[in-house]
């Protein structure tokens, strides 16, 4: 059966739209699989997402329940990763914290990628005044250092996960718009776009169905590579007390509140630090692998 599916996927003469599409995806996967580091990155990302999703099943304790008698315990059979300064189980808090941290990252990407794509494609394709206007707005956002703008925004609103997401999203979209615009400028002048224009399709249709899909690969790569910096910004905001608010577990916030114990009970801040490190590294490896496979300029 496995052989039959492989042949079906690799067929030179697909018999249906679906087969052609899946065949292409399979080819990409084959190319991706040849890069062990990228596969490792993907594996780590998937494991982390799975752990975060399955947090209620895997957690050994309630992440919010304090037990001051057991504070700052080293890892043991009862507390796999020890306990924090309020005696909460670190393992359980890591799992729930993953939900918050990774959830923030996903939320930011879901907000930012389509926004950047649309702004960039429209600016690049339509050109003229629209382009100038959209790009100047982009420049305004780009001119602020990311963390500072996020800080100002969160400070103006009430600190919390939602405002942190919006703040990071506000500062993260301009690079995608720039990237998408640059890609669009080259795509706009190709003959295949001229050919679609010759069908009489509306600009909107051309952007959505023909231009944007060509920008997607490089955007995907860029987003994946940026995930780590989004994680770090989220953690940074948490660390500064402007992201997730206690008692919500979030990796950055966890480091912030445990930083006092770094010399005596070093594992308390180091464990969430390692998680942030691993997640950033995994996304970077994944992004590098994706670039090799998806970016047309590499072919």
């Amino acid at each position, binding site marked *: 059966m496995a052989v039959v599916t492989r042949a079906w996927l690799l067929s030179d003469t*697909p018999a249906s739209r679906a087969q052609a599409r899946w065949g292409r995806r399979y080819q990409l996967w084959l190319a991706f699989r040849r890069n062990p580091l990228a596969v490792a990155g993907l594996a780590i990302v998937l494991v982390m997402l799975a752990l975060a999703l399955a947090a209620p099943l895997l957690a050994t304790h309630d992440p919010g329940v304090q037990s001051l008698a057991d504070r700052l315990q080293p890892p043991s059979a009862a507390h796999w990763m020890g306990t924090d300064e309020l005696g909460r189980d670190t393992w359980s808090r890591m799992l729930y914290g993953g939900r918050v941290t990774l959830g923030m990252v996903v939320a930011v990407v879901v907000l930012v990628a389509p926004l950047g794509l649309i702004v960039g494609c429209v600016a690049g394709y339509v050109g003229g005044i629209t382009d100038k206007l959209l790009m100047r707005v982009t420049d305004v956002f780009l001119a602020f250092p990311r963390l500072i703008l996020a800080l100002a925004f969160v400070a103006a609103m009430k600190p919390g996960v939602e405002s942190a997401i919006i703040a990071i999203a506000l500062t993260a979209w301009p690079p995608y718009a720039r990237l998408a615009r640059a890609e669009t400028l080259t795509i706009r002048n190709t*003959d*295949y776009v001229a050919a679609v224009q*010759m069908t009489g399709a509306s600009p909107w249709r051309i952007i959505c169905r023909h231009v944007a899909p*060509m920008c997607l690969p490089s955007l995907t790569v860029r987003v994946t590579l940026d995930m780590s910096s989004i994680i770090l910004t989220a953690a940074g905001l948490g660390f500064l007390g402007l992201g997730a608010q206690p008692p919500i577990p979030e990796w950055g916030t966890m480091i912030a509140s445990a930083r006092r114990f770094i010399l005596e009970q070093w594992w308390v801040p180091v464990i969430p630090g390692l998680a942030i490190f691993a997640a950033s590294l995994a996304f970077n490896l994944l992004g590098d692998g994706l670039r090799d496979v998806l970016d047309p300029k590499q072919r």
Partner: protein
Amino acid sequence: MIEVQHLNVHFGHNQVVHEVSFQVAPGETFGLVGESGSGKSTVLRTIAGLVPGWDGGLAVNGKTLGPKRDRAFFKSVQMVFQDPYGSLHPRQTVDRILAEPLAVHGIPDAETRITRALEEVALPRAARFRYPHQLSGGQRQRVAIARALIANPSVLLLDEPTSALDVSVQAEVLNLLADLREARQLTCILVSHNLAVIGHLCGRLAVMQGGRIVEIVSQAQLRDGTARHPHTRELIALSHELEG
């Protein structure tokens, strides 16, 4: 059918086409020949509505054309591009490429039309769900021709349709174009740098140099050497020389 009068095209401050005028009768195939930079492709792309910044008179089917073309224009006028590698969307299958004009014009019955279009350009059924990179140059150009013809246009603009192809494939594509032109009563404008290709398909042709038409000659004049302009004569001499 197609009327071009005193056409001027500017790219920024650079005028690339000067006072170009010609008419093409229904069912005729008109040639534009010249060396690179002579403005022949620009004239064609301007007619197609792909070039902004022109002035002069353009009319197709008796309708005067403005800077913006409507959907009806694109239903009756279609174009085949030079580079079959660049004119097909690299991430769309042949099926999707052919379905697009049908979707835009709201033409029903895509399934049978696509099958028929593939038959018409003699592409195997197996090619339907392939991506362009899985096809040869000649097959890609056939896909481009099928796409141009699928919405039943009356005018076909051909921009160096065979110059990226091998000579044996060029012969097949030229034959195909001749057959389709016959079967569908198409009016065509063919742009090429190759005088032999133009002479093969076109009844009349304009010789362009430096953005201007230097002479309009008939196929017969081309053959019996009664062309007057030195540039035309030069091109004819070169073409004979290369035939050996």
